[in-house]
């Protein structure tokens, strides 16, 4: 079955078909994705659903994309409200964030998360979706009493911040594949994903400078070593489980190519994804 020929035929009567399909390559990619999963007999159905998207059906595809964006928006709300409260407590003096670089960094990250909320809301709206809305009252950053001093103990505040950032990185990574049908949205999500990683790197350096790492003697670096959090609470461990793997796509990274690459370095060199369900389980304690 020469699907590409069929699309080319359509192009002869509708020169804009490729634009409608987000470009020829994307169309073929999308079709390949469908056809890999469905029986041969239902190929025309898969093709039809691809065209539905091109020709403005109510369509599951856009819904699937706005679902992902609303999931991301939820995480950005959590981060934004967390840093808003932390920064306010820092300014009020009830949370001992040191003046200078540390308080400035918290303000910077807060502003980024607020901007991400606004960006995702507008992206969802432009796709005819309805963005979710949350307020400070939507969240419980003590995680139902597990972290009662999160806004009065600087070390704990940073530990929770690190968990949110590292978790955010894993969340976006896990959703990239669900955005492949829309290049613009995929690229935007990737461009947020790497900002969350920059935040994680900086928060981790702040934790190292502050020194409240658990267990004693553990090192926290800008990158994630094995499945170590450096945080003295088992509650955050789900955010780090799986990061310890040292094999990628069947290739063992330890000492790869005859170079001395330790298991620690091999795990650090690749960040791992989490599924939406795994992420929701992690953040649920923080929902009021």
């Amino acid at each position, binding site marked *: 079955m020469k699907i590409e020929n069929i699309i080319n035929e359509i192009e002869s009567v509708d020169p804009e078909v490729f634009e409608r399909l987000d470009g020829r390559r994307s169309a073929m*990619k999308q079709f390949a994705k469908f056809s890999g999963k469905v029986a041969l007999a239902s190929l025309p159905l898969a093709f039809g659903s691809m065209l539905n998207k091109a020709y403005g059906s109510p369509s599951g595809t856009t819904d699937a994309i706005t679902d992902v964006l609303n999931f991301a928006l939820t995480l950005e709300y959590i981060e934004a409200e967390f840093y808003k409260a932390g920064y306010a407590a820092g300014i009020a003096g009830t949370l001992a964030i040191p003046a200078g670089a540390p308080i400035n960094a918290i303000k910077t990250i807060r502003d980024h998360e607020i901007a*991400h909320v606004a960006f995702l809301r507008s992206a969802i709206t432009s796709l005819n979706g309805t963005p979710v809305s949350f307020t400070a009252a939507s969240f419980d950053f003590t995680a139902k009493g597990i972290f009662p001093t999160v806004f009065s103990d600087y070390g704990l505040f940073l530990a929770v911040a690190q968990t949110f950032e590292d978790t955010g990185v894993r969340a976006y990574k896990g959703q990239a594949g669900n955005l492949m049908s829309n290049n613009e949205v*995929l690229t935007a999500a990737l*461009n947020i994903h790497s900002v969350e990683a920059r935040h994680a790197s900086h928060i981790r350096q702040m934790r190292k400078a502050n020194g409240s790492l658990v267990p004693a003697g553990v090192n926290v670096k800008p990158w994630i070593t094995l499945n170590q959090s450096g945080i003295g609470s088992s509650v955050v461990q789900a955010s780090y489980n799986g990061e310890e793997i040292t094999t990628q*796509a069947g290739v063992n990274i330890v000492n*790869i190519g005859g170079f001395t690459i330790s298991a620690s370095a091999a795990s650090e*060199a690749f*960040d791992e994804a989490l599924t939406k369900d795994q992420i929701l389980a992690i953040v649920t304690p923080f929902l009021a």
Partner: protein
Amino acid sequence: MLLTAAACKKDDAPSMNSGVDLGKGDPGILNYAYALEQIEAAFYTKVFESPYSGITTAESALLGDIRDHEIAHREFFKAALAAAAIPKLDLDFSTINFGSRDSVLGAAKAFEDLGVSAYNGAGKLIASPDYLLLAGKIVSVEARHAAYIRDLIMNGTFANDLDTNALDISRSPSEVFAIAGTYVKTKLNISNLPTS
């Protein structure tokens, strides 16, 4: 490096497509990543062989980590590409003063930010969800590096060059090689890479 891609179309004369062909489709994108990781790994290997004056123990440890990560990335792509891998590139770091902290960290910042923007821009060019995930696993580590290097240069600048929505920037392969080309003597042909 001489660039042959920019405005060339696929059907143009063969003379426009000379140089090492990165290839097409996903293998082309993997070779693109392999080329960038070759640059980064070779750079940090040299940084570690001849540390800049005044390097601290902490800097040395973490720059050593970064070298290991970049070598791991490079060797991973080489293994994944197998027979489709481009050869080892001929690199030129003569514009970098390896004895100078400012010069080395300035170059490191440029490489890391470039790497982040390259992977972010390549995401939409990848057809396989598995390769997209792999690129995602690597790009966030590059972003962690970028933030650390930036903070070494000036603390607090970990994410200073975002757009107005606080998003990182992404670059196309031709934009990336327009910058990285300074360090690559091997002539590369990127004209067969996917463009959307």
